[in-house]
């Protein structure tokens, strides 16, 4: 029980006490890869892994945004429906501009997606913060609205992207840079920017403080409304980026686009080590979480143990186990 008051012990004061929440998700990822290899050696092949990680990119990108929202003590259930809505708007915009602008409709459409996404997030944020409505209810409401809008816009069918744009847009999902699929690079970039914001910038501190204890943040002169609203806006922007990557994969928006994504997104955040009640966010853990989810789904397909129809069920089980681990590792 020695007591130090000087600067003597400062040198060895690095953060060596890294806990389960920091390493856990990556260990789990590693364990999963080993198990996967044992079940089916094809699992570890470069093509399979690249495929799986590429597929996990949407969830990873959206989940990085959700890390902000959840870290600041909020929740966003509308992300799946929002992704469908943004996809719809973006495709409609691109299609209508294609005759005039040609291929330039694509970047313009991307800009529209980001603007619409940020706007949707901002709306969620303002309803929660200024309107003082429980995040659960507020985003459940907007989830219904976005889902209804995409159904209405597509008339219950599909909104396919214009033939003239299809080839030009294709590389955004299927292209590679240096052998690495573009969606993977995009999600790494998004996560890198997010971790810079969360760990290096002032806003990150505010976000974690608001999530950890709203009163302490308020008494420290931090605006709760501003901090939380920005988190939702970031979430919206991330959903837009995910939607942009998603368009070439399916080539259309449908009323079932993004169904149950919110479950995967929240699961990814939670198994990534961010506490659902708010506090410090773990961006890279979230990314690992998203990859874990997709790996498990892939494993279920490659093995014959469990029917692939049960994928969502397994994900549901995982989020509950992750919460239990968080509870009992205290």
């Amino acid at each position: 029980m020695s007591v130090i008051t000087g600067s003597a012990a400062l040198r060895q004061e690095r953060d060596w006490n890294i806990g389960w929440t920091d390493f856990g998700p990556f260990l789990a990822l590693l364990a999963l890869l080993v198990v996967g290899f044992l079940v089916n050696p094809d699992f570890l092949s470069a093509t399979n892994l690249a495929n799986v990680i590429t597929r996990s990119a949407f969830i990873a990108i959206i989940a990085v945004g959700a890390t902000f929202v959840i870290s600041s003590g909020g929740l966003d259930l509308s992300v799946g429906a929002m992704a469908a809505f943004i996809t719809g708007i973006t495709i409609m915009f691109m299609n209508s501009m294609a005759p005039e602008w040609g291929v330039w409709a694509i970047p313009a459409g991307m800009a529209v997606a980001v603007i619409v996404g940020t706007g949707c997030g901002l709306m969620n944020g303002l309803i929660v913060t200024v309107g003082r409505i429980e995040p659960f209810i507020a985003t459940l409401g907007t989830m219904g609205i976005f889902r209804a809008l995409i159904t209405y816009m597509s008339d219950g069918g599909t909104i396919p992207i214009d033939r003239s744009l299809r080839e030009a847009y294709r590389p955004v999902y299927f292209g590679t840079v240096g052998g690495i699929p573009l969606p993977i690079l995009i999600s790494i970039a998004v996560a890198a920017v997010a971790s810079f914001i969360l760990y290096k910038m002032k806003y990150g501190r505010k976000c974690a403080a608001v999530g950890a204890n709203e009163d302490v943040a308020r008494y420290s002169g931090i605006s709760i409304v501003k901090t939380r609203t920005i988190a939702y806006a970031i979430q919206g922007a991330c959903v837009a980026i995910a939607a942009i990557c998603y368009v070439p994969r399916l080539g259309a928006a449908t009323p079932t686009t993004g169904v149950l994504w919110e479950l995967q997104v929240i699961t990814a955040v939670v198994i990534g080590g961010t506490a659902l009640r708010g506090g410090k966010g773990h961006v890279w853990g979230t990314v690992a979480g998203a990859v874990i989810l997709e790996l498990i789904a892939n494993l279920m397909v490659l093995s014959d143990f469990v029917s692939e129809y049960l994928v969502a069920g397994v994900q549901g089980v995982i989020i509950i186990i992750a919460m239990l681990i968080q509870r009992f590792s205290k």
Partner: protein
Amino acid sequence: MFAASRLQQESDEAAGGDTCGPVLQAKGMSKDYGPVTVLSDVWLDVLPGRIHAIIGENGAGKSTFMRLLAGYAEPTAGTLSIAGYDVRFSRPEHAQQAGIVLVHQEILLAEGLTVAENLFLGRELMWNGMVDDQSMRRIAAEKLSELGCRVSPNALVRDIALADRQLVQIARALLDDYKLVIFDEPTAVLTGDEVERLLGIILKIKEQGAAVLYISHRLDEVQRIADLVSVLRDGKMVGTYPAEGLTQMDMARLMVGRDLAALYPVKRLKASNVPSLEVRGLVVSGYAKDIFFTAHKGEILGFAGMIGAGRTEVFEGIMGLRPAHGSVVLNGRIIDIRHSRAAMDGGIGYLTEDRKGKGLLLNEKLAPNLTLSALTRFHSGLMMRKAREQAALVKAVENYDIRLKSFGVKAGQLSGGNQQKLLLAKVLLTDPSIIVIDEPTRGIDIANKAQIYAFIQRLAEEGKTCIVISSEMQELIGICDRILVMREGRITGEVTGEKMTEHEIALLATSDVTTAASREE
């Protein structure tokens, strides 16, 4: 099996047979948490019909000891014995069955339930398989009136005053048979009359023949009601003394283990007459109105009054933390208090009374806590500068004598006194010219108290304005140049110089006569 008859039974026992032997004996009890020994080899006899005070600095092991006695934790070594038989309590229920109840320091009640429901929570009376609300309400009413508490058993706990909640909690503890009642700092959140009422209840428990263990930081209370005083220091029992003939200074010396310099710093010369904060006609809806006062540079201005008089709310209003309006002039500039950061940016720093709930992020390390209100000072370009933050922490630890095991600990792991020093350092990092300190020494041991008083004095000498809100009149009288007294949301008077006495303040805080001096100057 009910309470009304219980008390009867208690007094019968007290009148009859085995009252001489101890109710409970602690024999060589130790408790380790990992490598840290919190309590080592503590012996204690608890006698029936006696109020036995346990005193010690924060971290001396008092609360741990009480938790062991009441079955909330198990000792690493040593035993408890009742009437010569060794007993083990692995759960609070076991201790309760043996007649040992603990009244917690924190209020642990379900706010959304009624008083009666809380009283019987987890041990509801049943009648033909249904919950017997009628009997429970009746017994609750009886029990509460015995304690002098006038709340209705049907009232929601959320709607009743803090002091009443504590009585409900006490009533809950006393519902079952008891031989020993342990009070863990029961008066920490109470003032004046409420404290008197509680001390009365404790004396009544003693008269009924039960033993009372009483933990408090308020040595004056200990001196008034205790029969025996045991002192813990660094987890060891210093000794047990008859309370008679033990002065407060003796107790403090035993607790600290050395002679204490005077608790309050020597008062310095009168402050300047340069006004730094002028408040005119402040209204905090629901809490305070007609607030007029001026604070000067280099002055220590006290705000006295009962809990609920609106002192905290006045300053939360000024800080933009709750809706308020009125004119606030800060160093000659009018500030718009409807903006949450206006007062803070203008140079007022406010230390909340609730350092655990509103002051510090207990699960966060020290540096992020320290810099939270002054983030702008620690980033350049886009990035936070961690090295600069760490340097600020090292400086704060030295300047404010914050004792810590390592720089990597979390704020929640510091003792109360050190948390308060960290909070002070945090607020001062915003470089305020006016510092408002709400309950500067609540739940803090005497050595840290003296240090905090010295810090306040030092700040005033540096020309800052210090405003101290406190429920402890002694403390205000000890350090302030001038004291404003509030009652029911208004400033009822001002005391200075010779008139700074507990009597004068109490009069203004409670009497119905509003003095003409309600508006100073």
